[in-house]
């Protein structure tokens, strides 16, 4: 399980949002994407999940170039989970139904076959009592954890997280970050866009600093976050850490 | 059961359609089964001539629009004062005429008191109305050519309602209908005058309506011809349609 991006480019109309991104994530590695608002973090994650078609470049998942335009993205997406900033749970389904939908339809399993493993997932993430609740009835932190469980239930090879804590109240952020730590310990490969520098420093294997669609700096968090080389990186970190 | 055998909608039965409702004096009490009224009587006479018992006659209701639609019909023939015209004969068949009607001008006493006369010149100045589906419309526009546009209605009742409401002064009907309406329906109804059938370029002749290329047409025509020549048709007319000689002819 290895993911490699090669010169990935993406424009919306005239604006180049990704301008030649190349990076690598090894099996079990956690990569944090940091950078100012609008620098292209979300777009990059959406491109990896094939929700946005690339303009140019390649995305190698093991031996396969999943960016090949003629490929059907549907089976590939099953191998790459993504969790969004705004949860995006299906509001007309209970937490359990949210999680069961994809396995039922894609793996053609029955509810009964799924109940056991999904119950286990809910339990692991402290959601055991909320299986029958609708998203409306859950707090933001609980919703976000259900969204993570929903993505995990498809047993993806790699997980993408897009600022999954930024819509949460400060006291709920902790719960969700705990979940990520646990995943990391189980050896999940992950890419995460975040503004939580403290968390990135503690947990990430590598940090990648994006600026206007380009990678400015890349390396272990100790180096990038404590001793940035680029003035832009210093500037950005100054502002973000100042607010915290 | 000679000529018509195998040609009717239902074997051994003759299905006849009339309007919903059917009006006096063509059918009395909206009950054609009783054979009362001019058209009801004619229908039974024709049926008898074609060899059907009264019990074999089945009545259904069908409006004009349903009858001129292309395709299969749910009756063998339909009689409800349908006028025979060339245009109509392109999509449906008509029997020989069973009645030739004069056109009559129905109005109210108030209008007569106000000075309306049975002359074309006087009629032109009045406010006209007619039933839209009837051949009265071309007669009205061709013969009278009123000064102001005529108002047109769905059926006779609406025309009489408009007369009653004072929205129109006069309306054109076939004479028997006009006589009935003037006598019974319209308060203070008066027949101002008539255009006799023989004075018109296209006199209003009623025929029985059948599906185009109906196999039955020959039998029906035969029956009507027989009834005409043996005077039975005139007899029925005398029984059910009132004397119309008193109505002044429009000059």
């Amino acid at each position, binding site marked *: 399980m290895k993911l490699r991006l090669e010169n990935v480019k993406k424009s919306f109309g005239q604006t180049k949002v990704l301008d030649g991104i190349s990076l690598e994530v090894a099996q079990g590695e956690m990569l944090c994407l940091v950078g100012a608002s609008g620098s292209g973090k979300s777009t990059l994650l*959406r491109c990896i*999940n094939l*929700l946005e078609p690339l303009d140019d470049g390649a995305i190698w998942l093991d031996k396969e170039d999943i960016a090949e335009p003629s490929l059907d*993205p*549907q*089976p590939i*997406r*099953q191998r*790459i*989970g*993504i969790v*969004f900033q*705004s949860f*995006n*749970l*299906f*509001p*007309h389904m209970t937490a359990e139904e949210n999680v069961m*939908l*994809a396995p039922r*339809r*894609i793996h053609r399993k029955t509810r009964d076959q799924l109940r056991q493993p999904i119950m286990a997932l809910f339990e692991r993430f402290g959601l055991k009592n909320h299986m029958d609740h609708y998203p409306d009835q859950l707090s933001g932190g609980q919703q976000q954890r259900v969204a993570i469980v*929903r*993505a995990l239930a*498809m047993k993806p090879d790699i997980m993408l997280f897009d600022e999954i804590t930024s819509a949460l109240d400060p006291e709920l952020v902790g719960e969700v970050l705990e979940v990520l730590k646990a995943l990391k310990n189980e050896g999940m490969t992950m890419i995460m866009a975040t503004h939580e520098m403290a968390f990135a420093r503690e947990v990430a294997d590598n940090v990648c600093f994006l600026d206007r669609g380009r990678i400015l700096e890349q390396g272990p968090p100790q180096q990038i976050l404590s001793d940035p080389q680029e003035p832009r990186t210093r500037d950005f970190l100054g502002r973000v850490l100042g607010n915290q | 059961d000679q000529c018509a055998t195998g040609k009717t909608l239902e074997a051994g039965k003759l299905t006849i359609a009339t309007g*919903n*409702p059917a*009006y006096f004096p063509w059918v009395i009490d*909206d009950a054609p089964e009783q054979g009362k009224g001019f058209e009801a009587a004619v229908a039974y006479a024709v049926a008898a001539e074609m060899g059907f018992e009264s019990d074999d006659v089945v009545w259904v209701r*069908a*409006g004009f*629009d*349903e009858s001129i*639609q*292309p*395709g*299969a019909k*749910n009756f063998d023939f339909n009689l409800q004062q349908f006028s025979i015209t060339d245009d109509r004969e392109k999509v449906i068949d008509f029997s020989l005429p069973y009645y030739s009607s004069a056109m009559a001008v129905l109005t109210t006493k108030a209008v007569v008191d106000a000075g309306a006369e049975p002359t074309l010149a006087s009629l032109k100045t009045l406010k006209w109305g007619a039933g839209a589906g009837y051949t009265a419309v071309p007669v009205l526009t061709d013969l009278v050519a009123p000064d102001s546009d005529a108002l047109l209605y769905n*059926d*006779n*009742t609406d025309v*009489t*309602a408009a007369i009653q409401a004072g929205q129109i002064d006069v309306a054109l009907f076939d004479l028997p209908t006009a006589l009935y309406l003037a006598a019974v*329906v319209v308060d203070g109804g008066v027949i101002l005058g008539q255009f006799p059938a023989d004075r018109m370029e296209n006199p209003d002749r009623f025929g029985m309506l059948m599906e185009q290329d109906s196999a039955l047409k020959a039998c029906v025509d035969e029956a009507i011809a027989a009834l005409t020549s043996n005077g039975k048709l005139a007899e029925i007319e005398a029984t059910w349609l009132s004397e119309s000689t008193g109505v002044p002819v429009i000059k």
Partner: protein
Amino acid sequence: MANGSAGLTRRQAYERKLRHRSLIIAGGSTLAVVLAIVLLVPLAPGWEKVKYSFFNGEVFIKTFPKLLNAFVLDVAIFAWSVPLIAALGLAIALARDVRNPVLYPLRLFGALYTDLFRGVPVVLVVYLVGFGIPGLGLPRPWNSPYIWGTVALVLTYSAYVAEIFRGGIESVHNSQRNAALSLGLTGQDVMRFVVLPQAIRRVIPAQMNMLIALQKDVALLSFIGPVEIFRQAGVFKSLLANFTPYVVAAAIFLVVTVPATRLADYLITKQNRSRS
């Protein structure tokens, strides 16, 4: 507010006074207006005639049972049209959402269809379909005006219903589709399990309005033959030369449509409120 009746606050005392006065005024003025109508209208010169023609008790009693009976046909036509309209409307809405180029004619068809049937008065569609299609040479019973009249209503209303469904589908935020796609669901499953259930829920009040309109337009089938309440009223009108049957028909409609309209309004208000 735990004040005893003795310890009224300043406002409570004032409001109690005001309430008394306004009750009296409102009651009095309503009564005055009602009395004025009841007493003055009958003084109009033609009132007796109009009353005879439009509010004739005798005619009412004579025609009411048969009219109610005819109304059953309205209800029946309504009842069997609704599922057809819902199904066809949904199908057309989905057709307009198709992206596959092979199915382009479907999209085109959907667009033309809605334009066509929303553009032409229902009466005309009833006439054209009700008389035209049977003419293609259908044998009995397949040329029945009940069938083709229903088809005409279904065609017209499904165009409106389709547009409402389409609005609902488009109102489901793209992030919901994306979330479902990112799980690896097929486009079809995304529509069926994620988008449609949300879309349909949102457009229920708008569709209620269509139901009420349909309920009233069933009356137009009478033009091609079926003796439903409107035609039955017309027959009575012709026979009795009296318009009371129409008033009776209108009253029967009111009994059904007023509660339905109220319900639809209530749903719409509730939904608007929950949105803002």
